């Protein structure tokens, strides 16, 4: 795969430099680490601060969701690797507004181990830290084992909801409860049509035949459910949507938000062709779409493919979903 990059080992640093240069009104660096960013107007006194973080290579995940109505800060790892404990600790210190910090991130063991170490350090220093992990990918474990599932694009809903709840000046316990509810009510499934290449590795994480696709692919090129022949958009959308619907389950009369996420190389046209079918299925099942998001919300660099995420709404989740939010990648309200 051809990339427009310089030194592969400088990939993350140069990306951050570019983002900071492009969006000075939105983001600033966290002091004491090259791998931390926070909202330009932070810390916000009295507000629960939300820290996220994870590996690079998924923009707008994670740093694209830092801003009012979203997260307060982010620590940034190497491509597909966890941020360092040091970066996490500095971010926590910088964004803390006195009301505690929520660590909100994807259920990946590298992130978990490092965030847990950071939490221990920060709590020793007197900062209240709580943790909520997104785990929306239905393919990654059976429903009985859902706490072990990995996060994919549905993490976006957790950011949007928790960020809005924190902006309401809710307490740490309240923000945790709302974030947990959002996580519990989100389900996703993805498909990949082509691999991606970690710049420092230089060769693709997996290979797919010219007429193959991988159902249930994760956002790091982890394999999924099964390899199959390339299907039509309608067939793929149907498989993903039915699997997602059955898992929660979603049912007649539910109100939902839908996210059709592009993994990187899949054009917007194709995402809308997928959405068309998802929307049809939801209409057939008498499930109402309150808001649809279609675009690149969690990428895997140049991977081709897409995922379907559904969030089941109640009054609180709906209010938080529709609340304003502002980042270089998401502007709402």
């Amino acid at each position, binding site marked *: 795969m051809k990339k427009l990059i310089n030194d592969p080992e400088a990939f993350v640093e140069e990306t951050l430099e570019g983002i900071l240069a492009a969006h000075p009104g939105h983001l600033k660096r966290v002091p004491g680490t090259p791998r931390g960013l926070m909202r330009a107007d932070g810390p916000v006194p009295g507000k629960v601060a939300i820290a996220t973080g994870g*590996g690079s290579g998924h923009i707008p995940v994670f740093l694209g969701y830092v801003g009012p109505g979203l997260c307060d800060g982010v620590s940034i790892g*190497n491509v597909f690797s*966890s941020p360092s*404990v040091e970066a996490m600790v500095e971010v926590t210190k910088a964004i803390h507004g006195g009301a505690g910090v929520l660590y909100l991130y994807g259920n990946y*063991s590298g992130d978990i181990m*490092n965030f847990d170490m950071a939490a221990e350090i920060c709590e020793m220093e007197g900062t209240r830290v709580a943790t909520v992990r997104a785990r929306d990918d239905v393919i990654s474990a059976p429903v009985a084992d859902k706490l072990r599932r990995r996060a994919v694009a549905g993490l976006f809903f957790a950011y949007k909801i928790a960020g809005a709840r924190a902006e309401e000046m809710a307490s740490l316990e309240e923000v945790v409860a709302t974030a947990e509810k959002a996580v519990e009510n989100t389900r996703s499934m993805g498909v990949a049509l082509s691999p991606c290449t970690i710049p420092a*590795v230089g060769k693709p994480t997996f290979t797919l035949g010219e007429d193959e696709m991988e159902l249930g692919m994760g956002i790091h*090129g982890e394999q999924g459910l099964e390899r199959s022949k390339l299907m039509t958009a309608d067939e793929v959308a149907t498989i993903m949507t039915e699997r997602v619907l059955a898992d929660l389950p979603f049912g007649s009369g539910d109100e939902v938000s839908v996210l059709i996420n592009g993994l990187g190389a899949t054009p917007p046209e194709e995402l809308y062709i997928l959405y068309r079918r998802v929307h049809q299925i939801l209409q057939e099942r008498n499930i109402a779409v309150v808001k649809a998001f279609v675009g690149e919300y969690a990428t895997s660099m140049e991977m081709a493919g897409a995922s379907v995420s559904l969030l089941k709404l109640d009054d609180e989740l709906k209010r938080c979903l529709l609340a304003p939010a502002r980042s270089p990648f998401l502007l709402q309200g």
Partner: protein
Amino acid sequence: MAKTELTLADFAPLAAKLLADFQGANDEITALDQALGDGDLGVTCRLGLQAIVDLPDPPAEGLGDALLKAGMAFNQAGASTYGALVATGAMRAAKYAKDNGLVTWDLPAIAAAAEAAAEGIMQRGKAQPGDKTLLDALLPATEALKSAAAQGQTLAEGLRAAAEAAAAGAAATAPWQSKFGRAAWLQERTIGTPDGGATVVAIALRSVAEYVEQNT
């Protein structure tokens, strides 16, 4: 004269040898983590070891303290599941050294420190032997170190036995199903490929054993 212990003077040359060996093993490690994970494990090892080699001052308080700093540096530059487990293991080994006033490390000390490290890694990661993780190389290696120490073998012999036990342990993971980390999501599809993290343990121990042999 046969080398009987590792000291602070060994730290820098050993780190340099590990880095060189991992540069050579990069493709093998990458391929394993691509098969069962996300493909970053080779990069993680290279960046982590480079950070150790680049540590500013030779740490002053003995090999234990050096190991602690090395573990932290490894996981700062190569933060990841593996990095966190390496850092945890290094922290526990350092604690063992501190609690026991170790300055230089002979084979019994190394065996005991390795056991402390393995215990820490099990606490942090919650995995058990047979779950197809780095433990399936580290635990047999620890056993080999302990029995070599009990039999009064030389440092070189003990490390060679540990490296071989780790390599055998890593190879034995191939037919198993992964139960932890990213690989667990692949469920049955992990069967047939050895665990990358266990392979890393085997490569590292082989490197240490060679270092001792070459400096004997």
